[in-house]
């Protein structure tokens, strides 16, 4: 029996006004995979994520998540996926407890249940002492932790992460990487977008590189390495057409000293 792919994109095209952002993305992700989705700024990473979580219904091509059409079943999809956005967007005049209680209510979870779960999760992230403090005073890493919890509180089957490690301290980074690994082992699918190459290199089962709205590489790190035996960073630079960074750096120094 073949298992239907968890995420499937066929010929995905999206443009804002005249400017094309995605130029025919085709991809299919199976359950239990950790997919690293990388590309230079403006390549279309965030746009892909937003389409997948049903925030941008206005696109051409086909996109299904958990076998459901993103355009027609956005609400059903949203119930079963988690999303952690990139720029620490949360209502920071609330406390973590209040915020997570609110998010839980949006998923129609039972308030008592949310409270227990939230307290435990905050404790695991070492935020117990701050559970009832307003988040205006929180550091970027603390906010990121709350954000991570808010994206996974409802135990989603697919998790979309946009730069999930930003601002976290080294210990928390190890912890979150391990969480991602173990989630995948229990059959969850992780779709992960980041600029930090060595993290992507280490935790991804599969790496997809996009540039200018198109997929230019797709495979395990070993497979990608097979073509060009270098680090992911170098590979990335080469493929996205900016492998002359050494020269640019030299020129930069030159301009400074002039």
């Amino acid at each position, binding site marked *: 029996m073949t298992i239907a792919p968890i995420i499937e994109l066929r010929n995905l095209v999206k443009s804002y006004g005249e400017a094309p952002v995605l130029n025919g993305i085709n991809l299919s992700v199976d359950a239990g995979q950790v997919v690293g989705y990388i590309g230079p700024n403006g390549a279309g990473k965030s746009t892909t994520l937003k389409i997948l979580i049903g925030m941008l219904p206005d696109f051409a091509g086909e996109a299904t998540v958990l076998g459901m059409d993103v355009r027609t079943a956005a*609400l059903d999809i949203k119930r079963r996926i988690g999303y952690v956005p990139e720029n620490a967007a949360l209502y920071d005049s609330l406390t973590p407890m209040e915020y997570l209680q609110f998010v839980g209510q949006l998923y*129609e979870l039972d308030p008592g249940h949310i409270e227990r779960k939230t307290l435990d999760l905050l404790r695991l992230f070492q935020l117990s002492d701050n559970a009832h403090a307003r988040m205006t005073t929180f550091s970027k890493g603390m906010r990121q932790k709350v954000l991570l919890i808010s994206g996974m509180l409802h135990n989603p089957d697919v998790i979309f992460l946009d730069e999930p490690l930003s601002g976290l301290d080294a210990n928390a980074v190890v912890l979150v990487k391990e969480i991602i690994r173990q989630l995948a082992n229990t059959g969850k699918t992780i779709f992960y977008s980041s600029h930090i190459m060595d993290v992507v290199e280490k935790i991804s089962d599969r790496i997809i590189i996009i540039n200018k709205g198109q997929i230019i590489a797709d495979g395990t790190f070993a497979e990608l390495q097979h073509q060009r035996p270098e680090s992911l960073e170098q590979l990335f630079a080469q493929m996205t057409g900016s492998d002359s960074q050494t020269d640019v750096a030299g020129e930069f120094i030159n301009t400074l000293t002039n």
Partner: protein
Amino acid sequence: MTPLILSILDRLQGLFRSLGADYPQMRAIVQVKLMMDNRRNYTTLGRYGQQKKNNDAPDNTFLKVLGFYAFFGVILALQLMFLERENLFLPLIFQFSYVMILCAMTLISDFSSIILDSSDNQIILPRPVSSRTLWLARITHISVYLFAISLATGLGSILILGYRFSPVAGLSFLVLSVLSAMLMVFLTNLLYLGLMQLISEEKLREIINYVQILMAIAFYGGYQLIPRLMTQASLGETMERQWWHYLVPPMWMAGAVESVLLWTFDTEHLLFIALAILMPIGGIWFMSRFMTGSFTEKLSGLDQESKPTPATAAVVQPTTLPDQLAGWFTSSSLERASFAFAWRIMGRDRKFKLKTYPQLGFGLVYIVFMSLRGGTFDNSGFATLFSLYFAGLYGMVAQYQLSASDSFKASWLYGAAPIRQPGEILSGSLKAIIVKLVTPFYLLVAAFLIWRNGTDQVSDIVLGYISTLVMLLVSALFSDRRMPFSVPVDSVNRSNTGRSFITLIVLSLIGGLHYGLTLVPYGVWGGIVLSLITVWLLMRQYQRTSWHQIVMA
């Protein structure tokens, strides 16, 4: 307040459900929004947030504003007390216009950022919340405030009508006030949706900004104007119905109340009643049915559209206007940089514009009304001077706002850069205010006064202008000296009483001196020379501000 509001919502949940909302989700969103309003000095609540001293008294400012509205409502409602039952149509129109104008004003100036809030995009849109639920939650959130406003403004009328005629009359006014608020919600949303179809998000915010400024000025002008209209308009006469009366919303409401008062239900009145009830309810229903989808869709596009625009940036000219002006008015390169910097931000920061431009507008409106009132003082005398200096006060608001910005965090720059004399930054930005705002404002004032009173007062106007500069500098010297755009917007309005007191004393002192000089031949011209020297000395003093005199946030 919040628990009360939520329990009212709970009673109405059938209504929300029938409009297509997922009630528990909607309730959660409204609850969180109200909670945040109470906590934060919510900048979007504009006027309501401003004078708040601390977070302990969250609802107080809003209550004060309500009290203020209610007070004006009662004054406006007094006519309902004395006029004949048959002649109440016109005063009722005024009442409902007042309610509607206040609601529309509040919606546009204070709540547009809630309606167009794109921070929800990241937080709520990825959750399984339907766009209708989100939309209804927003509308409900806003309506809570609007209903409070409409009830406060209508309070006087409700009581008077209820007491003088019948409880039913009062009740009908109450219901119609709430319906007026609903109608305004519908109309403003329609306006926003229409604008969003036509123009980009950035332009929209720009337009809203100017609408807000105009509204604020119109509002102030209205306060001055309406009492005058009231005394002039022949209130005692019954109005002939015209066909266009059926297009003006306050007329519907007034007609409906009149119908209850006179207990007549002819075609005319039934038509008014029908419009008064059906339009607001139908409007809301229509929107929640057909327009919410495109609304949230547009909203979720908001973040993106503003992204890829660098290509359209114009070719940078070697010397731009602010740079050139900076060259004329400043002496050191640091001052020049600060001048051009402040000039640009003042022209672009919407919040700065929103706080400053209306005040300048008030000043102009004030001058115009003082002058129109005329007659009580002779034109060449005290009155003109008084209005001149009073307008000068308005011109000084910009200086209050200069230190505030939403991106105040960028002020680390002042700490990191090797600035020896921060006073030059202060003086540069103050000069930018003088050239960009105070001077054009004064030119308008001067143009109006000259047009009105002829040219014999030119010397007074010139002296008034220079004196305003003196006051501006005095106020700058005596208040906390903060680097431009370096503190959060909320914190500017605190601890200013001392400074405003000093400013007032100096104002009356200088104004009095000026008046004395008008009695001496050539006195005013001498005054001009003296105050020019004062300006120069004070500015030099200000320029020499050193680091330990600067208050950093």
